[in-house]
């Protein structure tokens, strides 16, 4: 007969990244069993999407992964444009790639900062956010908003990127890699950080695939799977980049994979900024006055690689001006489900670190 301390982590707890609640059973310091309880931020965006025009639905996607809203927008548009039979011009695809990669950098920086906080490192959080702010300044310049950008629209983007903005992005690309390496050294140069992460929360390749884990977490477990390579969308097939893979599967591997992804994003951005062609920045078929009259048909499932993993949008249309059914495959929803497997028989401190390494954004988990 063994008694456990039952403890309730969250939904108001400093390390649950928003509104996650964990029902944990503790044996002293050891976590015997946890059960995540989610839904505190549930808005049922899927139902809301059924009630709104195709063009307006974009705002609900902005608010899903609110630290990387550009990735959400382009994920939705991948599906919506196919449903509406609207082909965006070539220039738009390049602009979207640039915005996606900037957003990915911004998202990973938030993750790195918050992961440091989970481990008790106060300072790198601010370094990460100072860099992220430079990305957000680009977003502000391009659409007037920092977080929920609502920049892309059906058949194009809201506003063309001017030479000034290109210069701004180039200045960022100039300064960012150096700062990134500094931040990287703050983390990896610290022995305590390494000892807190090496060999903690090891996820085997089989468990990862079984639980449907995608994104950096899957790649840290030794699976070379990136939707940008597996099923190229936008113009990712014309860009030269590598998919970082680690075979360790622990927290440190996830950390390293994410940092390498940021470096690859810089690499992609440098190419994309150079290659971006001239042309219109929206398809005239989808000009603003026509937007609510667009009718879709058929059903389409689009996969994109968001900063958290494989982000899928499944739209079923019935020929009306509103979608018949929208389903979102949220990567963090699945990445979170594996935590109860990873955190078993770990210490409380490690459970927090594992939870931090998942990269949770509750707008997306709960939708």
């Amino acid at each position, binding site marked *: 007969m063994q008694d456990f301390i039952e403890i309730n982590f969250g939904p108001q*707890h*400093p390390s649950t990244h928003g509104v996650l609640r964990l029902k944990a059973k503790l044996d002293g310091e050891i976590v015997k069993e946890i059960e995540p309880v989610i839904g505190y931020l549930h808005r049922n965006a899927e139902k809301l999407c059924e009630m709104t025009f195709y063009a307006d639905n974009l705002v609900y996607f902005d608010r899903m992964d609110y630290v990387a809203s550009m990735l959400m927008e382009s994920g939705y548009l991948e599906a919506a444009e196919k449903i509406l039979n609207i082909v965006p011009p070539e220039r738009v695809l390049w602009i979207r790639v640039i915005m996606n990669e900037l957003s990915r950098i911004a998202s990973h920086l938030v993750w790195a900062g918050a992961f440091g906080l989970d481990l008790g490192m106060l300072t790198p959080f601010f370094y990460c956010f100072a860099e992220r702010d430079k990305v957000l300044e680009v977003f502000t310049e391009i659409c007037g908003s920092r977080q929920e950008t609502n920049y892309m629209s059906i058949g194009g983007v809201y506003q063309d990127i001017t030479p000034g903005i290109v210069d701004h992005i180039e200045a960022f690309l100039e300064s960012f890699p150096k700062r990134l390496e500094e931040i990287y050294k703050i983390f990896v140069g610290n022995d305590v950080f390494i000892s807190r992460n090496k060999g903690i929360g090891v996820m085997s390749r089989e468990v990862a695939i079984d639980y449907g884990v995608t994104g950096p977490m899957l790649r840290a477990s030794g699976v070379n799977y990136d939707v940008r390579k597996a099923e190229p969308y936008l113009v990712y097939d014309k860009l030269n980049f590598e998919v970082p893979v680690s075979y360790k599967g622990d927290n440190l591997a996830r950390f390293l994979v994410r940092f390498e992804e940021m470096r690859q994003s810089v690499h992609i951005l440098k190419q994309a900024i150079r290659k971006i062609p001239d042309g219109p920045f929206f398809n005239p078929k989808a000009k603003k006055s026509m937007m609510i009259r667009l009718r879709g048909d058929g059903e389409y499932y689009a996969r994109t690689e968001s900063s958290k993993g494989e982000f899928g949008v499944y739209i079923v249309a019935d020929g009306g001006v509103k979608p018949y059914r929208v389903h979102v495959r949220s990567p963090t929803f699945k990445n979170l489900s594996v935590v109860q497997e990873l955190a078993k028989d770990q210490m409380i*401190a490690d459970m927090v670190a594992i939870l931090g390494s998942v990269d949770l954004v509750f707008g997306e988990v709960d939708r």
Partner: protein
Amino acid sequence: MSLYSTLLGFFSFLGYPLSNAAAYLFESIFLLLAASLSLVFMIYLFRKYMARVQLRIGPNRVGKFGLLQLIADVFKLVQKESLFPKNRDDLPYRIAPVMVIIGLMLAFAVIPYGSFFYFGSLTVSDTGVSVILLFAILSIMPIGEVLAGISSRNKYALLGALRAVAKDISFEIPMMISVLAIIMMASARTSAPLSIDSIVVTEVLPYGILQPIGISVFLVAMIARASYSPFDMGESDSELITGFSTEYSGMRFGMFYAGLFGSILLGSFVVSLFYLGGFNGPFSGDLGAVWLGIKALILVIISFTVWLSMPRIRIDKFVNFGWKYLLPLAMINLVISGALTLMTGW
């Protein structure tokens, strides 16, 4: 000449018993004021320093350069309602923060501060056994923390208290053994090796130079004693919310907060007294207190830098570290200093 005798002379018009009482009273008031003010200054310094490290500005609204921010914060904390948990164990719950503060203030009374111009020695109470007294007082604070953790009847607080106990016993012994080495070396030259004052006065070289292992062990122990990052497992905010002080609010929380900064200041004083020569320095007859202050300030800044740059160590790793590394190191230090004393007579 000391602060006490200066005050005694000042109050001599009251007649003997009264002047004695008045001198003690005012000495205590001075001590409390000085300790509280230096705590406030330390918290201000920490916030400014942290802000600079983190590319921020820090407090800058209340008063010039935000100097009055901490006073405003103290008033805010005093005004705040204290929330009491329903199932608390009432008496221990109430006295726990007070014990932390009392332990802190008592420890400030034992430290010799050196002399300062007209006032002479600023030491409040100079007993012959101040080393023992100091470490006895220092172990009052953890009792307050443990009481707080157990009496709030909160699982987070309980876990925090358990961690605090596990941490305390694993650094306490190495700390005492490294102090033992100092007492051993000092006893070769002074007849009162248990008085911090005479240890510092009679030293030939600062003990930090003679015992490099000792100062490292003692510094780590002092960081763990103050329990800030990397050894803040007891109140680790991302795991246990704030550990044993989870259920405290208002000024009761403020006392724990003051206890944390007070321990840093105290630790810096103690390390600089034992290992860095304390109030020794040029013109130490007049400027002794200033030398001690400068040394302590440097140590405080070093502590803040450690605090801001380290992640938290896991509790089991720290306990391992305490028993498997700190304790043997302290023992080795003891042997080396014993040999050094025998050979050189220092």
